[in-house]
């Protein structure tokens, strides 16, 4: 075969003989190539993450469009205080993470470890607050899958429970004006005879909004006044849950980074894992930056609170 012009030759500057960085993997020609591959790989991974969350966001978009009112009201049951607090915490952790990368670039091991720990602490705080919020939702029975009672909107923003417990009575009274409208919605029981063969379990006079009655009221079709609200809470849990899951995975990775930093693996020449993790962490932050207004801040000006 005459036409065989691919030259199998030695690539310039490559071959054994000159020393490799200990972290260089065999299939890369240079440390530079390894670095740019990992960093690009991380970005491609993040694109994948965008689309992953994108599926949730598109569901959100569709249902917010469909159940505009219900989303507004359901959103008002979240605590803006907790949400905003968590937003700040997460932003702060992004800062510490950026500083950690910076420290790694400079090869300052101690500083790197310090910032990694700080990031972890902030992440833990975030998750802790999330647990409180989830627990509040749980006590209000705004949990997906708990049945028909999801539609009941109980209004109690600005009600900060350091320890999860029943919604504070003070707050309930404070906002009773806003509640009235909602309660009337649920109490409006028309004087009707149930159609034959069809169940009608709610009886007039029941106060489904009252705490403690929720379980009893559950299953009553009369109280399921807002199908959209159930979807809102499902999305709330799905989105924040998926976000929290990413945080938890992030915490695990942070531990691993910390261990490696402690072992002195990262130097001013080699810190790719720290940097890539930073990208991941900031990405998770960005997701929250969107979740906060989308979930907590719908139609607050209407004063459902």
């Amino acid at each position: 075969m005459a036409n065989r012009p691919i030259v199998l030759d030695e690539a310039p500057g490559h071959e054994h003989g000159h020393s490799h960085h200990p972290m260089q993997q065999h299939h890369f020609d240079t440390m530079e190539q390894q670095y740019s591959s990992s960093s690009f790989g991380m970005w491609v991974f993040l694109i994948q993450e965008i689309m992953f969350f994108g599926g949730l966001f598109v569901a959100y978009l569709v249902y917010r469009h469909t159940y505009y009112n219900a989303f507004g009201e359901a959103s008002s049951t979240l605590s803006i205080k907790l949400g905003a607090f968590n937003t700040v915490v997460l932003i702060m952790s992004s800062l510490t993470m950026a500083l950690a990368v910076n420290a790694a670039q400079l090869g300052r091991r101690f500083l790197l470890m310090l910032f990694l720990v700080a990031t972890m602490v902030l992440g833990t705080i975030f998750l802790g607050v999330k647990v409180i919020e989830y627990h509040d939702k749980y006590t209000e029975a705004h949990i997906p899958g708990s049945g028909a009672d999801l539609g009941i909107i109980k209004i109690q923003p600005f009600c900060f429970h350091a320890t999860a417990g029943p919604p504070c009575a003070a707050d309930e009274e404070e906002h009773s004006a806003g509640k009235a409208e909602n309660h009337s919605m649920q109490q409006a029981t028309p004087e009707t005879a149930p159609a034959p063969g069809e169940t009608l379990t709610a009886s007039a006079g029941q106060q489904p909004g009252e705490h403690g009655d929720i379980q009893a009221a559950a299953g009553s079709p009369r109280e399921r006044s807002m199908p959209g609200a159930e979807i809102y809470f499902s999305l709330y849990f799905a989105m924040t849950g998926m976000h929290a899951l990413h945080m938890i995975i992030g915490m695990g990775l942070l531990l691993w980074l910390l261990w490696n930093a402690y072992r002195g693996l990262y130097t001013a020449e080699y810190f790719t894992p720290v940097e890539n993790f930073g990208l991941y962490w900031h990405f998770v932050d960005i997701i929250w930056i969107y979740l906060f207004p989308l979930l907590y801040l719908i139609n607050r000006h209407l004063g459902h609170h």
Partner: protein
Amino acid sequence: MSAHSHEGARKTYYLVFFALLVGTGLTVFAAFQNLGIFNAPVALGIAGIKAILVGLFFMHIKDSNRLTKVTVLAGIFWLGILFVLVLTDYLSRPWS
């Protein structure tokens, strides 16, 4: 990179952090104002700016190569495809 630019970077981080705090405050504030149909766009606009800040500075997109930038844009573009084309259905349904 020189140590000097790393110091500069730190300064940027603090500035961005500050801007993000302001953004958070702003978005909470805006949520309680009656802006008519603009409540949602304003909220998303602020979120978008915050996200861009995080991306450009914390994630160093500003200083990264073209491939990275194209990658990020591609991600956003595809997300756009998902949103826009799903909405072509929902927004043009007679009533649902």
